[in-house]
């Protein structure tokens, strides 16, 4: 079974040379720590920066340079700043190659819910609806089950949707899965996790084809 860093480490392998990548808040943010340093990748933050670098050294924080999580950041050589309309033009116009975000629920048809729990304080969707509706390559990073132990991979989402039919790949603490016409196709098992365990934790249709390899992290 993977921890949050393990999920991020596995997703980092999906990041290819030359990719522009948008990382959501939470586990997706950790992905930047595990991307191979022999490839060239630029991270986009929807508040208006491309070419994000690590956090600044203490004393070098700049209130005018933050990421979408409102954290102080730095920029790398080749970075650029732009306005919000241009930023979402990059996203909507499919110029960003890969979007990695978290979710509360994913359905077997690729629907995603990650912004609202009825009856609880609604904080808003931020840029999530624009990101999921526009990107062609969306990886969801999440735990396979919620805190109550219920599956987050469902036949149909129960929470208000963020987008329809948009998720292509999911990496959880238990498995790597792809969204197909037949349901969640099991591609890889996390170290030490059996197909049975994954089946048990998946409410939606799980498609198992032949021997499912254990992932190398």
């Amino acid at each position, binding site marked *: 079974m993977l921890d949050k860093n393990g999920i991020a480490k596995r997703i980092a392998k999906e990041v290819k040379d030359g990719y522009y990548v948008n990382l959501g808040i939470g586990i997706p943010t950790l992905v930047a720590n595990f991307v191979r340093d022999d490839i060239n990748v630029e991270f986009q*933050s*929807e*508040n*208006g*920066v491309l070419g994000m670098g*690590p*956090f*600044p*050294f*203490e*004393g*070098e*924080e*700049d*209130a*005018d*340079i*933050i*990421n*979408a*999580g*409102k*954290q*102080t*950041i730095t920029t790398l050589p080749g970075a650029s*700043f*732009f*306005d*919000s*309309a241009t*930023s*979402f033009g990059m*996203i*909507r116009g499919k110029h960003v190659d890969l979007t990695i975000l978290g979710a509360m629920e994913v359905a077997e048809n690729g*629907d995603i819910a990650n912004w609202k729990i009825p009856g609880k*304080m*609604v*904080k*808003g*969707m*931020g*840029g*999530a*609806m*624009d990101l999921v*509706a*526009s990107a062609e390559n969306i990886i969801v990073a999440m735990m396979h089950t919620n805190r109550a132990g219920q599956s987050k991979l469902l036949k149909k989402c129960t929470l*208000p*949707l*963020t*987008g*329809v*039919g948009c998720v292509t790949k999911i990496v959880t603490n238990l498995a790597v899965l792809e969204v197909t016409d037949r349901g969640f196709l099991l591609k890889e098992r996390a170290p030490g996790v059996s197909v049975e365990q994954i089946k048990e934790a998946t409410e939606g249709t799980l498609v198992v084809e032949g021997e499912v390899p254990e992932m190398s992290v």
Partner: protein
Amino acid sequence: MISKKVTGVEAALKGVKDKMTLMLGGFGLCGIPENAIAELVRIGVKELTCISNNAGVDDFGLGLLLQKHQIKKMISSYVGENEEFERQMLSGELEVELTPQGTLAEKCRAAQAGFPAFYTPAGYGTEVAEGKETREFNGKMYVLEEAFKADFAFVKAWKGDEAGNLIFKGTARNFNPCMCGAADITVAEVEELVPAGELDPNQIHVPGIFVQRIFQGKNYEKRIEQRTVRTRK
């Protein structure tokens, strides 16, 4: 040169009245029009509709207007980080219209650029699209979103000149350029106001035609919401 310079924040906000719709630039507390917000609090205008990506924190940014119950409605994409906001929203005092962030930016830009509406894929199939026209283009579904209409836009830039030309710094740019010219009157406050001719025309982010009033701001606090650092090895 057509001068847009006004003497200060008081002159810049002349004509702001109760029940108006205001646009306010900024992302979180980054690039917010601190001087204009302080003046809105001072003049005490009420029942405002505010278009702003976020709603500040309890004691800064738009949170200052919320404390004084000056806002009737917020149009935003994300409104966490503010307890007073939550209290007013749950008690029904405050109306909130949540809009996807890219749609929010484009509704500003459309108003600036003279488009009455536009199609976006964001929100299709979700509650955001309820009651809105949808249409298919090349096999994909889109939602029709209308341009904003606002009385005033308050933006903050790094440098500006008397002609109203603006230059921004870092991610403090965010929604500010999209809001310039998107309201009847755009008011820009800047950290450094210079005479016309001092800024390189090649480096201007927003041309002065989109700005009606510009003033030298003061006492910028530039509060950091999440101070994240790494340690030197």
